[in-house]
């Protein structure tokens, strides 16, 4: 029996991780190929792969993937560029926090997806509308989480900096920001994951391209294989971006692992 909190080796970890994927696909194949679930509602894994291949080779699905990735990254970068500095300021200066925090906390609970109809009115169904959905969905989350992280900076480090002659600005620049940089990167990684759900919602309504658009198109044709393929692609891209983010963080912040 494994003991609580006992670490496992890297090899065991990978094997276990992969084996659940295998189990999952096996269960799916069993349910569909075994005839327990109607084909109309759930395609089997083989059909899904065939449909996916067709999508990629015949229907230009790669273009859809590209445009979706572009929207996520665009909206997310926009949100991060505004939210990270604001979050740092809010975390550092309590008066600024008192000024913005109540509004941001309120805005955070506004569902990004509910803005889609409104944004279509304001920005049409072009790219701007898609970017704005992701922007609205991400920006308040990032602001709040960064502000909390910065606000929780170890006080003794700040005090040490002051006794070493740091000015107020110096403390922000040379203690608050570097101390929280890894945490901020981690917050961005997390929120990027959420941004993926917003983009699909934005593409489900009033869109003529993207993964979400393909999924809604396929629904009309009852092509569940294509729909599942699209969903799985999103998962895979998410996994890759997560992996890249982690790798970059390890490279940028070696002191965390030292």
């Amino acid at each position, binding site marked *: 029996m494994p003991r609580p909190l006992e670490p496992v080796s890297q090899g065991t970890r990978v094997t276990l991780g992969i084996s659940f994927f295998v189990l999952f696909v096996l269960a799916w194949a069993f349910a569909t190929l075994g005839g327990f679930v109607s084909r109309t509602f759930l395609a089997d894994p083989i059909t899904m792969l065939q449909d996916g291949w067709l999508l990629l080779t015949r229907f230009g699905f790669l273009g859809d993937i590209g445009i979706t990735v572009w929207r996520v990254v665009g909206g997310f970068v926009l949100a991060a560029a505004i939210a990270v500095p604001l979050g740092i300021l809010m975390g550092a200066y309590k008066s600024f926090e008192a000024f913005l925090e109540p509004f941001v906390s309120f805005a955070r609970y506004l569902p990004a997806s509910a803005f889609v109809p409104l944004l279509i009115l304001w920005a049409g169904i072009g790219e701007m509308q898609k970017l704005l959905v992701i922007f609205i969905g991400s920006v308040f989350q990032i602001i709040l989480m960064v502000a909390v992280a910065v606000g929780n900076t*170890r006080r*003794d*480090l700040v*005090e*040490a*900096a*002051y*006794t*070493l*002659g*740091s*000015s107020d600005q*110096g403390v922000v620049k*040379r*203690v608050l920001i*570097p*101390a929280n*940089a890894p945490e901020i990167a981690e917050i961005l990684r997390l929120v990027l994951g959420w941004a993926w759900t917003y983009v699909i919602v934005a593409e489900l309504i009033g869109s003529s391209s993207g993964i979400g658009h393909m999924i809604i198109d396929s629904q009309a044709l009852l092509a569940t294989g294509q729909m599942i393929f699209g969903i799985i692609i999103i998962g895979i891209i998410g996994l890759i971006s997560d992996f890249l983010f982690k790798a970059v963080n390890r490279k940028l*912040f*070696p*002191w*965390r692992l*030292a």
Partner: protein
Amino acid sequence: MSNTILQIDNVSRVFPGVRGGAPVRALEPTNLQVEQNDFITILGPSGCGKSTLLRIVAGLDRPTDGRVLLNGREIKGPGADRGMVFQSYTLFPWLTIAENIAYGLREKGVPKAQRQEIVASYTEKVGLRGFENHYPKQLSGGMQQRTAIARALANDPEILLLDEPFGALDNQTRGLMQELLLGIWERERKTVLFVTHDIEEAIFLASRVIVMSARPGRIKADIPVDLPHPRHYRMKTTPEFSDLKAQLTEEIRVEAMQAEGVH
């Protein structure tokens, strides 16, 4: 001979009550004069306000009443003229040992070449050559506190403030640290204010021991330590040392009993 570098004038500190509770008087009005090149240890039971007093000198806390003068100028806030070493490990974890030591110099705008020279000299003095490019996490607690001392000294402060810097270290390491700090002081004669609750440490390091009473803290005794320099750890077993220790143990015991509510 009036070489007073630091003057503590009627400094008191009352912390406001939490959640409507009664305010807490941490420090009674306190007067203390520190001469140039003195090594003063402030000894007292925990919670006696000795750290509060040190933090007021550092400028990290404000006195409720009274004032602190450093070279005749009133202290209004923290500054590079008072180096501080904390009990907790306060090295910046994202900077290497060399970068940590250079922190204050960089804030001051000292040119790089000169910075490196100073850093190298202090790395040497605290015995950390070869660890310049390590991160704090990779070092033991004793090494981290040595770096913290080097970081404070590299700034060339007027006075060095230490708040139980060796409190978290094991006994053996603490002994070595005391010798290292004393060795540096014997060579450089930097004015030092050192807070501790360890009687042996207070005597071994000091030229003057200030004993503080239980909360609310006030200075209870001011005892000069005339043991000769350079001091060696074996001094801790000499009769003179033992006498001082016995005397201070009595002083502190009464206070500790009071602090614990034992009579």
